[in-house]
């Protein structure tokens, strides 16, 4: 049932140019336009008021992270004598660099593995007929609706018995088979014209070559959306790391700074500095590529 609506929206990702609302048609005469623009002002004010609430936590976080010790508990929003001391304390106490490297490695390897596994599978499920393909598709749809929380306990037991808790392997392997990735890519592959595939076959291309040389380059819009979805959701993930991690060893940024916040529970400014560092990469990425972010995160937001 959910899938019906999902496919409806998932296909939306793939038709470029639909996400941008068309501008209401203007009337043309300068004075009419100006009056119309003027009538927008109350709405801009309303939106700005809401924006203050939406952005207040970010402002409070950044400003507080630059406060020196003696200003931390003052009610002023802005620091009077801004300093990097809090950042210094974060770097002196925890290996922030390692957290970032771990996050980059974990999210990067998950995405790479997901693409390597999902692209051929999605192609086979979209364009080839074989015994058991209906069952395989059914399993994929079932898995897209399965929340991580439901499989977390058996997976935790599996890694605990194998002695692989607190290890990069346990951080990466559960996410390598992305049912959602297969679902999204399959939708896209269904739309590729048959004559493109026939031409490849006539040129003697094997299935393997067709998938990576011909189909994959065509799938860039779907792949970009999936990349944003995968990277952002695993960069931000806190649930699974909080189950399997217990040291700095394989700690990703959300886990690392949360552990830091628990151990330095009174150092408010340093916690804000750690949070600022954690939020910065995604916020910068989002501001640089907000169109891709919006597409990847909204049109493909389903339980992973």
């Amino acid at each position, binding site marked *: 049932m959910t899938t019906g609506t999902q496919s409806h929206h998932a296909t939306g990702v793939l038709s470029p140019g639909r996400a941008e609302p068309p501008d209401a048609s203007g009337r043309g005469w300068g004075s009419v336009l100006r009056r119309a623009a003027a009538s*927008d002002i109350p709405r801009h004010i309303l939106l700005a008021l809401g924006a203050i609430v939406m952005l207040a936590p970010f402002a409070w976080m950044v400003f507080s992270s630059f406060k020196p010790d003696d200003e931390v508990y003052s009610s002023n929003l802005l620091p009077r004598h801004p300093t990097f001391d809090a950042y210094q304390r974060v770097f002196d106490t925890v290996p922030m660099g390692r957290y970032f490297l771990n996050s980059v490695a974990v999210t990067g390897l998950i995405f790479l593995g997901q693409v390597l596994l999902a692209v051929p599978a999605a192609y*086979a499920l979209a364009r080839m007929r074989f015994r058991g393909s209906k069952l395989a598709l059914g399993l994929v749809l079932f898995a897209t609706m399965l929340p991580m929380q439901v499989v977390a306990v058996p997976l935790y037991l*599996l890694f605990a018995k194998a002695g692989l808790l607190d290890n990069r392997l346990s951080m990466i392997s559960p996410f390598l088979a992305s049912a959602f990735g297969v679902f999204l890519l399959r939708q896209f592959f269904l739309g590729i014209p048959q004559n493109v595939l026939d031409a490849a076959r006539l040129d003697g291309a094997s299935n393997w070559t067709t998938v990576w040389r011909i189909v994959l380059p065509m799938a860039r819009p779907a792949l970009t959306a999936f990349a944003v979805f995968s990277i952002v959701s695993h960069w931000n993930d*806190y649930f699974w790391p909080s189950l399997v991690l217990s040291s700095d060893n394989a700690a990703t940024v959300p886990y690392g700074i949360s552990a830091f916040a628990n151990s330095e529970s009174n150092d408010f400014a340093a916690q804000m500095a750690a949070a600022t560092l*954690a939020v910065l990469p995604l916020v910068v990425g989002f501001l640089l590529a907000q169109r891709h972010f919006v597409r990847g995160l909204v049109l493909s937001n389903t339980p992973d």
Partner: protein
Amino acid sequence: MGAYVLCGPFLLFLGVFSVLPAASTVVLALLDWPLAGGNARFTGLDSFRRVLGSEELRQALVNTLLYSLFTVPAVTVLGLLIALTIHSVRRGKVFWRTVYFLPFASTLAAMSIVWKWMFYPERGLIDSTVGQLFGVTNWLSDSSLALPAVALVGVWHQLGYAVVLFLSGLANVPTAHLEAARLDGANAWHRFWHVQWPALGPTTVFAVVISTISALRVYDTVALMTEGGPVGSTSTLSYELYRRGVFYQDISGGAVISIVLLATVMLVTLVQMRSFGRRLSEAGAR
């Protein structure tokens, strides 16, 4: 032959890390299998009796449902209102969309730490503004205010998602219909009620169902702002799953909570689709 080579590796991983674990949840719930070592022992329905009868689970279930009741309607209604406002302005649509979407794109674990301090008694931003105005202070230590506080953060985080969904829904309303309504002399309210709202039916169903599913799984804010407290007043199913299954190493108990969580998500989604899903989806098609 070729198809199995293309599909095989993916299906192998899917089987090992999703399908088999999902199926084994039921088996694990029937066993007593100590993590430290030792053989598994069949215990039948003991774990179900122990967990389903516990006050912790009842509280977690009630809190999870309350949390969804607090957040989903607020996210949907505010999301629609903000999207309508953004859609109606001539300039700056992308700018406002970016602003409202920012919380959804940021790391919730980090922002939970920030919100925890915003709720800090007296000195936090909330107590020094809202608290001063309305006299409601010290939210996170108050067992009746802690869940609303966590829900507030949930609304803040999910709102941008709904805004963007509704904006793309509004962009797909045929301009010809709106123009026709305008020529017929329909005012802004009539244009919304008779043209835009029916066309938004499928978007609304999608927004409600998806934000309910993510509300029923709420974890990060609870784990980092309140750890389920005070006295269990913010414990949710996902958090109880972690607390019992991992923190107290009660694997079979954790498995029972997984089943309860899955059943809750499926039941609530089903009820939503039955009660208003079909009606709103059809409204969109008419």
